[in-house]
């Protein structure tokens, strides 16, 4: 990375019309769990509006990497800059980044004691300090966008897995994030519910132009929606490229093995 690029990344948020600056920048990021070296020098730049799919075997560090981007995990070496804000121990920076970055979890993590609408409108009310009426109006719009306005007053326990995950997506969108992180959003779903969640995500990528990082094994989704696919193994990005390159012409043997297993089952 050149000095000019680093200066650009540090110069604060990109202004409208500001062309080319990455919205997410990872530079030689390392992380250890105890003695276990889980991220081994990750460098990555993601531009606004880009949809990046991260694939790889379990234990390869995919989830840890995206959890570092909103500081659910802290990295121990290297730099992470999100929307012009560098992630450090400074809690103000962390809070600022978290309110720009939405996250969707494998196990949904909806709040079981709140209704779908309360799940969606809680954060705008408490973090953005919007009045209840405005938060709920936006919440209802979002529930409509994920296709379940009629479930607004239902508790998560009464929803199917796919419905819960769609509410979770609406909940993340309620903070009007610039970036959405998806941590294996369909891995805990019954097969017949995967498509409804993927459809919502496709809509988000195509219509809203959202910047998205998606950790997933859904290669159909990757082929159709991703601008770029990363393949991770043992804490490092071993292959990176556009879907057509990734599926037709992988170079790394580990990628070839992974693809042969996942595509020909």
């Amino acid at each position, binding site marked *: 990375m050149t000095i000019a690029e680093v200066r650009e990344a540090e110069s604060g948020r990109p202004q409208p019309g500001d062309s080319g600056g990455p919205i997410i920048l990872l530079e030689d990021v390392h992380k250890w769990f105890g003695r276990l070296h889980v991220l081994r020098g990750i460098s990555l730049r993601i531009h606004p509006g880009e949809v990046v799919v991260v694939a790889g075997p379990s234990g390869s560090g995919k989830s840890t990497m995206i959890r570092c981007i909103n500081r*659910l995990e802290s990295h121990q070496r290297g730099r992470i800059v999100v929307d012009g804000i560098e992630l450090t121990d400074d809690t103000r920076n962390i809070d600022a980044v978290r309110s720009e970055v939405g996250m969707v979890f494998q196990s949904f993590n909806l*709040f*079981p*004691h709140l209704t779908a609408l309360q799940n969606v409108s*809680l954060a705008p009310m408490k*973090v953005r300090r919007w009045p209840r009426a405005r938060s709920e109006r936006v919440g209802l719009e979002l529930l409509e966008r994920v296709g379940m306005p009629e479930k607004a007053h239902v508790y998560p326990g*009464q929803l199917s897995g796919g419905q819960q995950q769609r509410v979770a997506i609406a909940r993340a969108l309620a903070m009007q994030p610039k970036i959405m992180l998806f941590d294996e959003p369909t891995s805990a779903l019954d097969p017949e519910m995967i498509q409804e969640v993927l459809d919502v995500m496709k809509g988000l990528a195509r219509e809203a132009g959202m910047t998205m990082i998606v950790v997933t094994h859904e290669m159909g989704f990757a082929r159709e929606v991703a601008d770029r696919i990363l393949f991770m193994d043992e804490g490092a990005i071993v292959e990176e490229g556009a879907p057509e390159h990734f599926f037709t012409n992988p170079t790394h043997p580990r990628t070839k093995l992974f693809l042969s297993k996942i595509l020909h089952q």
Partner: protein
Amino acid sequence: MAMRVGALAPPDQRPTPLAWLQANLFAGPWNALLTVLTAAALAAAALRLVGWMLRAHWAVVGDNLRFWLVGPMPVEFVGRAYWAGGLIAGAALLTVLGLRVRVAPRVLIGLWLGILAGAGWVMSPVRLDEVGGFYLTLLLATVGIGASFPVGVLVGVGRVSRLPVIRTASLLYIELIRGVPFITVLLWFSVFVTLVSGDALGRVQRAMIAMTVFTSAYVAEIVRGGIQSVPRGQTEAARALGLSGLQAMRHIILPQAMRNMIPALVGQFISLFKDTSLAVIIGLTELVGTGRALLAITAYLHDVREVYVFLIVVYFVFSYAMSSASRRLERRLGLGER
């Protein structure tokens, strides 16, 4: 080939009463012998109990209701005590009715604050150390529960804090208190605290503080368990949305933890209610103290059994009421939310 299978009713497998008796009480000679012997022993015990009950002198209860209720309170204040008791009983009744028709909790809390302020005002001329009987038992239990709950929640949240100073202080407090019996805490507060406080704190107040300090440590552990019973993903989801640590605790973790905590918490509060009886050793005339004071009167010297049976019944009725109320609460909170 597709075939629809009609649903069948489950088979009736209940035995007839005679078959049940034969299988459970008279299966073989040893079983029959054991049944007969047990029945004979029970019958003999019941006969003696009934005989005692017919001869029992319940006058020690019936003639001293005033002392059982309010203890050695000066007679000119007794009327006030009954008024205050009536107010609180009325509030309890309104609460039960209010829960039936699903009044907002805010209204009920307001009602209780008002009633308690009213009762406090009615009782304000009475010195705390003059009250006794059931009144004192209830007062000790209510203040103990009312104070140890918030303190316990604070210490419990402190116990899982990320700040080492707060975490260690909470841990020290919890382990110190849990390492000593309640009686010693009670004695310590009644003997040593006066070194510092002088006459500023009466005996009853010292007992209240002792109960709060003691029970808070246990409440804190229950709170910690409740907090840790909420899956990690809940905190992560809350933090990922931008909620601060305190906001996540207040809006996401504690509401869920609270429901898991109810059975243990009620158990702790029932045990606090019963432990008020230990205040008798620092000379308070609560229920047990009243019983002992009455037994010291010549006319009642031989009514020990009557007094203790009465005490058992009173403690049981109130403890049972608390535990059945908590079961209802659990059922109500459990509905439709998880």
